[in-house]
């Protein structure tokens, strides 16, 4: 799994470390580091909990799995 952490955005709260069921993350120098990306099963619970939206899993998109409200999608595409 290709996991990217936006180190500028990360606030070092450690919620992803606590939240991840597979212990993928560790805090190092106040920034979250995906130390075991191979363990990741792509549940994206870390995305949900991250206050700064600093995490990115390449190739996995939660909204593409369970499709939602047309109006929401329209609006989402137009927020600039």
């Amino acid at each position: 799994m290709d996991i990217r952490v936006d180190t500028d955005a990360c606030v070092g709260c450690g919620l992803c470390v606590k939240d991840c069921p597979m212990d993928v993350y560790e805090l190092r120098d106040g920034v979250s580091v995906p130390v075991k990306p191979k363990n990741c099963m792509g549940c994206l619970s870390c995305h949900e909990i991250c206050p700064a939206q600093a995490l990115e899993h390449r190739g996995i998109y939660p909204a593409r799995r369970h499709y939602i409200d047309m109006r929401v999608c329209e609006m989402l595409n137009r927020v600039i």
Partner: protein
Amino acid sequence: MKIAIEELAGCSGCTIAVLDLHEMLLDLVAQADIVYSPVIMDVKEPPEGIDIAFVTGAIRNEENHERLKLLRKRAKKVVAFGTCACYGGVSGLSMLSSNDELFNYVYRETATADDDGVIPNDVPPFLYRAFAVGDITKIDYYITGCPPKEAFLRQIIPAIIAGDTLALSRKSVCAECDRKMGPVENWSLKRRHEGIPDREHCLLGQGYLCLGSVTFGRCGAACPKNNVPCTGCNGPSLDVLREPCRDIYNMMLRRISDLTDKPQKEVEKEFYDVAHTMYAFTIGSLIMEDKENSKIRDLVKERSG
């Protein structure tokens, strides 16, 4: 290039935010004519052939609705400008009171009201609720912010006029905040007037209801950096907007509970005045109201009587 800036149910702060571009306004008017803007010029009706119309404010009465329809007809692109236009904003809070309560307050109870206590009937009547402009008509772009901050407008307005694309941050306020966030013990919720928050640690961890983690950024976290908890004026962050099961209330609850190891039920008991502390800027938005676990429906029902 002709641009218009319309005022609907709002405070006109968004137009003032455009004026806050200061000397950059000269570059702006060199590229585009401002042909209609009730706050800064004297034209009463929007002319034909507008290229970009910036609509500020929510839809609360029939006049707002008519104006929006007219502008949609006469403009090629309509931009919802500011949080009122995007999510109903502060105007939406009027839904927490009945029309009678609102008119009584405005025309009779305020200190500056006329002594005769007459409620005028020659003004446009209210619609049954507040709407964001996107709930009523097709919108081409949304720019959030209450008002959109000047540093951000300096980037976005020239780009819109030139038709360029820009890569901008799409993250939450926390991503721009420099405070340290981490697990806390013995957490309890504080009102804003209680104590003075320390500058180093996360305001939410200190017990203040800071909405930074569920709020769209681009304000440079101006409030948290000045010891003021985020009130959510930029509207919901894009993950809250996108995911059907996420809402401002439940994401705040979950995050506080995870940070503090306090059960959600316990945290929930400490919340106060949810309509004003969490939904102050999004209560008028149908999109936010229609989320499965949104509290907006209950709040409006309970308070408007």
